[in-house]
């Protein structure tokens, strides 16, 4: 659905995006992570033909955005952070205006989408009377009007309260489930990405530093959380038995290759150490993301395909 190859964007001397390769297959919810200024919005701008790439090729729905923008965006919907509309017009009129830039849209189609997002009864009210949540729903409605196959969401939960964020998350899942849309979600809300996406790419200073499956990130690593009566004695005897290769924070141990937790427990009990708990340590997206930001490369065994 989305394919970026060696994309570069320079703003004067500033490298906003550097040698970006990205592939988003059909039917996926793909997360684009990175903090402010990482180049996410510039990358999205280039996907939508709003920002001209300095170098590289961008294909959306099989069409080159630079040369065949109209065909590329025919079945694309987009939502940006803090959706902006014509406040002095009604929600309905805003939908009419925006949808007609894609193709003539029937009143029935608008009605159908207004119903779907739950704005029925308020569609004729002026936009200035809408809450943040209603604006977000209207933003979804305008994105859905051209019956898209691909949705590009740039920080869609920005400015929403916790309830609004939850609602947005549920809507994204509904869109994926009921309409089978491919979704590119740019966000710095790690929790949101963790709950929605199947695959992610992380950008830092214009470069992609990671791309891979989200499931692989949270897969148990060789680190184990250990609760015993004497942690230092435990690690000493485990090291002597060559069962661990590292320890940290007075509660975690890194198992040696091919060593399972039952062997660790047996060894500790044999040496008279009481074991209260031993649990595989799952790396959270936050931990993974922060380690990426620190080092510029993923920590520990890298799941999925490595970044360029």
């Amino acid at each position, binding site marked *: 659905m989305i394919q970026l190859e060696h994309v570069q964007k320079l*703003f004067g001397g500033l490298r906003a995006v550097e040698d970006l390769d990205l592939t988003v297959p059909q039917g996926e919810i793909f997360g684009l992570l990175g903090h402010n200024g990482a180049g996410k*919005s*510039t990358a999205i*701008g280039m996907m*939508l*033909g*709003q*920002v*001209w790439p300095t170098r590289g090729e961008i294909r959306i729905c099989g069409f080159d955005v630079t040369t065949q*923008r*109209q*065909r*590329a*965006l*025919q079945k*694309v*919907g*987009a939502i*940006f*952070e*803090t*959706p*902006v*509309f*014509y406040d*002095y*017009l009604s929600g309905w*009129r805003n939908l*009419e*205006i*925006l949808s*007609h*830039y*894609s*193709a*003539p849209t029937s009143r029935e189609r608008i009605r159908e989408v207004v119903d779907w997002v739950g704005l029925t009864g308020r569609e004729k009210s002026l936009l200035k009377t809408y809450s943040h949540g209603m604006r977000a729903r209207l933003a979804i409605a*305008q994105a859905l009007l*051209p019956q898209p196959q691909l949705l*590009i969401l740039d920080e869609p939960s920005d400015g929403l309260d916790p309830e609004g964020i939850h609602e947005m998350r549920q809507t994204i899942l509904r869109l994926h489930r009921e309409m089978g849309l491919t979704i590119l979600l740019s966000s710095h809300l790690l929790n949101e990405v963790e709950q929605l996406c199947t695959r992610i790419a992380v950008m830092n200073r214009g470069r992609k530093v990671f791309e891979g499956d989200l499931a692989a990130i949270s897969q148990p690593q060789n680190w184990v959380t250990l609760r015993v009566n004497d942690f230092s004695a435990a690690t000493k005897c485990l090291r002597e038995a060559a069962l661990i290769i590292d320890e940290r924070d007075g509660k975690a141990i890194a198992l040696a290759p091919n060593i399972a937790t039952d062997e660790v427990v047996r060894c500790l009990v044999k040496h008279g150490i009481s074991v209260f708990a031993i649990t595989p340590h799952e790396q959270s997206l936050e931990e993974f993301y922060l380690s990426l930001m620190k080092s510029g490369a993923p920590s520990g065994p890298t799941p999925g395909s490595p970044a360029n």
Partner: protein
Amino acid sequence: MFLLQLRNELWKLFGKKRTYIGSAMFLLAQSILILFLKYGRGPSHGIARDMERNGFPVAHYLTNLTVACIALVPIAYFMLPLYASLVGGDLVAKEAEDGTLRMILSRPITRLRLLVLKWVAGVIFSFTLVVTLGLFGALFTGMFYPVTGGLFVVLPPEHIIGAFEGATAWERFIAVHVLMTAEACSMMSLAFMFSCFNVKPAAATILAISFFFISVIMNSLPYFQDWQEWFLVHHLYVWSNFFRDPVPWWKIGESLSILAGYNLTFFIIGAAVFQTRDIKS
């Protein structure tokens, strides 16, 4: 499809309170001028004196059309360029500033088509503004002055003194207003061009007004006499030719051609800049 999109642009343009505040100020200025001409002892005596000095009977020529035209001159010379620039400067830059441009350009519409739509909407607005101005002028002055009689016009900058009777008076009055659209359009196009640059709407308007005043200054300096024919402002008041007798059609055609050239140039420059611009939040 084009008409549907144009209708949408007009909804946006005419739906804004800002558009009407400007128009209201315009009509207010016209009303104040007319009321001053009616009740201000100095101005009303001045009009009568001018007529008598030129041998035109005051009772016949002091009509609603005459006073509407007197009030029209300062508005057409100064306020119309200013207001047309305000509207033209908003057309693209305001959408970019508000962020709605990014919403539009996530749609499969070409930038050129979007600009054509906006420019045509601007032309329609210019025409509506001028027609409203004329209609309001004729109706408002009709409340204080007789609607029958002649039309007496004095335009000192253009060295025009004219008098017209009955139907001809109305024809000239209407023709002047229709042709004034060219002035409003040209100023709108100038501001529209700047609006396509990566600037704030106010900056686009200021740039257009600055261009206008520089053009006025250069046009008034004798050193630029050989080049005057190419200055925008030299042709901007093409409408005043309808107060000449006989009507200099060739001069009107020449001015309209040059204004059309200016408009096209402004549009092409604006479109070229807009096409190469990056649209960011």
